[in-house]
């Protein structure tokens, strides 16, 4: 057995990992059953920041990610947009990454246009698009938006967008919501927006790789953080708890549908994070097992070498 694990080809480990991720996806996809989520304090802080703003507040949503990190961040982006729309906030979408506007478009198409048909472009939400310059963009728009954003992504002039009439800079925003996959992202927003202008409030959702580096900014410089897919799943649970009746599938009479337990039947696009926690559990169990086996092999090997 010892020799078997010591000489195990790494491709068997890849196969095991494939099965550990694939089987739960298929089972959850087929049955719709997921694990319950218990939101942590940091995730509650994110939820409260958006929830406690009065309706009609201005929220800047900067989607600084691309398809490479969509698996972790798209569920957060979806729920941020849903939560803001459900609360009636005005949403100013922008991006520091070149593919960010496509991520914004996806969110607008799948969430706002489908589930908030009353919201009007230019009055309730606007896509300002991408500008190159990384933190340089933040540095400029923190004092003057129009210096860089003379139009939105459709080419509409800033002055012709009704919801932009009383906005001069990021300082006019009531909240910054950032979805970050790396540079430029949450760290740069903290460095060049929130730290020099401490009155600004900011929450973020980030990839797992970034999360440990952002914890030192909490709570003074960053007021809430969704760390990786786990944070997304917990946030989904909170939003579903608060807005499940509005979010649920509806019957012909526009009444929310429920399952046998009385829980609302939530469309799959709002439970992406929760669904992905199933594969996470099984894959993490495999990882822990592999780490233990690897360490046992290491110590046995070292003891054998010591005897020689």
């Amino acid at each position: 057995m010892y020799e078997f694990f010591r000489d195990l080809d790494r491709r068997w480990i890849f196969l095991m990992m494939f099965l550990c991720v694939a089987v739960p996806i298929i089972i959850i996809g087929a049955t719709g059953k997921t694990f319950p989520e218990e939101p942590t304090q940091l995730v509650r802080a994110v939820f409260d920041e958006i929830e406690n703003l009065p309706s009609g507040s201005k929220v800047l949503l900067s989607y600084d990610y691309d398809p490479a990190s969509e698996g972790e961040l798209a569920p957060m982006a979806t729920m941020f947009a849903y939560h803001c729309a459900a609360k009636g906030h005005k949403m100013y979408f922008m991006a520091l990454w070149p593919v960010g506007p496509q991520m914004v478009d996806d969110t607008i198409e799948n969430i706002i246009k489908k589930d908030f048909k009353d919201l009007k472009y230019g009055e309730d939400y606007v896509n300002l698009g991408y500008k190159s310059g990384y933190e340089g963009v933040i540095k400029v728009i923190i004092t003057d938006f129009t210096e860089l954003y003379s139009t939105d992504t459709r080419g509409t002039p800033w002055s012709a967008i009704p919801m932009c009439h009383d906005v001069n800079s990021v300082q006019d925003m009531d909240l910054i919501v950032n979805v970050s996959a790396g540079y430029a992202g949450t760290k740069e927003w903290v460095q060049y927006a929130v730290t020099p202008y401490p009155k600004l409030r900011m929450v973020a959702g980030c990839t797992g790789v970034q999360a440990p580096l952002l914890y030192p900014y909490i709570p003074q410089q960053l007021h809430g953080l969704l760390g990786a897919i786990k944070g997304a799943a917990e946030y989904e649970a909170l939003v579903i708890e608060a807005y499940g009746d509005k979010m649920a599938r509806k019957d012909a009479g526009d009444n929310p549908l429920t399952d046998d337990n009385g829980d609302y039947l939530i469309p799959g696009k709002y439970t992406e994070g929760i669904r992905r926690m199933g594969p996470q559990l099984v894959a993490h169990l495999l990882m822990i097992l592999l780490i233990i086996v690897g360490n046992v092999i290491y110590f046995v090997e070292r003891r054998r070498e010591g005897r020689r």
Partner: protein
Amino acid sequence: MKKETVIWTVVMLVGALVLVLNGALRGAGSAYVKAVPMQFVNVAEPGEVNADWIRYNSDRAFDEKLCTQPFEDIPEDLRESWVRYEQAELGEYLASRAADPNDDNYRFSLSQTLGIWVAALFTLFIFSFLYKDNPFYKIAESSVVGVSAAYWMVIGFWDVIVPNLLGKVAPAMVRAWSIPGLEDPPNYWYLVPLILGLMLLWRLSPKGSWIGRWPLAFVIGTTAGIRLIGFIQADFLSQIRNTVIPLIAIDSATGSFAFWDSLKNLIIVIGVLSALTYFFFSVEHKGVVGKTARLGIWFLMITFGAAFGYTVMGRIALFAIRLEFLFDDWLWLIDPLGRRAAEYASLLWPAMPLLG
């Protein structure tokens, strides 16, 4: 022929056969679109210079009674129309066909179907590297590099150079050419970055490449300055302030001693001081300093462990979304978004009673 080659050939052939059958019998991997007519009319007053296009049948058109006549009766120079195809679900397509077999508002989309198949096959090509390096992986890798480079260039041109450089220096030209709504007056300060940009391009010239060093020096200098201020404010001064916290915390609501908050603050202070001690090399790491530095290593190791755990979680999430794409959009094994009719929802439907 080598045994390994034979095995892989058989696996590939069986896989291809299953894919073809799955596609032919169930339509797996196909995509559908909905045709949305886009009709606009120009409602500008006669003699008005700028056109004022509004959507025909829009709220404004009804409110202002601007579009009282049928669209086809409006003079051709005052109307524009085209068809936009929006993504539709199989369920919608089947429902429209059931209601009216001649309804072509919902239709099969060859281009989007090809997109799904190319995305799926490229995903598999990239995964194939886990077995070993191979030509399929190389094709996918090269395509990603090429497409990314082209995409960055196009985005950079249309989102930055046109509106933020040409639009500032020659707004009239840009207005006439690409952004009709641009209202900014000329701002000739933007000639400076234009000249610096042209100087930077001089590096490509075989002669006088030194000219490119001036704008480069400018970029490096300004970037260093901006970064320095950012780090000093947010990461140095603010982090010192964030570490000055009470070791005995009091619950603000009840006024009583808050044990867990006090413990958290104590760990933060000890962690910061011991980790800093580890990186303080002016004193030999012996005695109290050595023990504190060793404690600092423990804190660092715990941090690295947490970072590793988070990274694993992130990578598994990325792997999961690719598999979800393959199983849902491509193979139609699962349907978590409820996009297909029940009979197409899952290949696993015979096993549903067992799965609960």
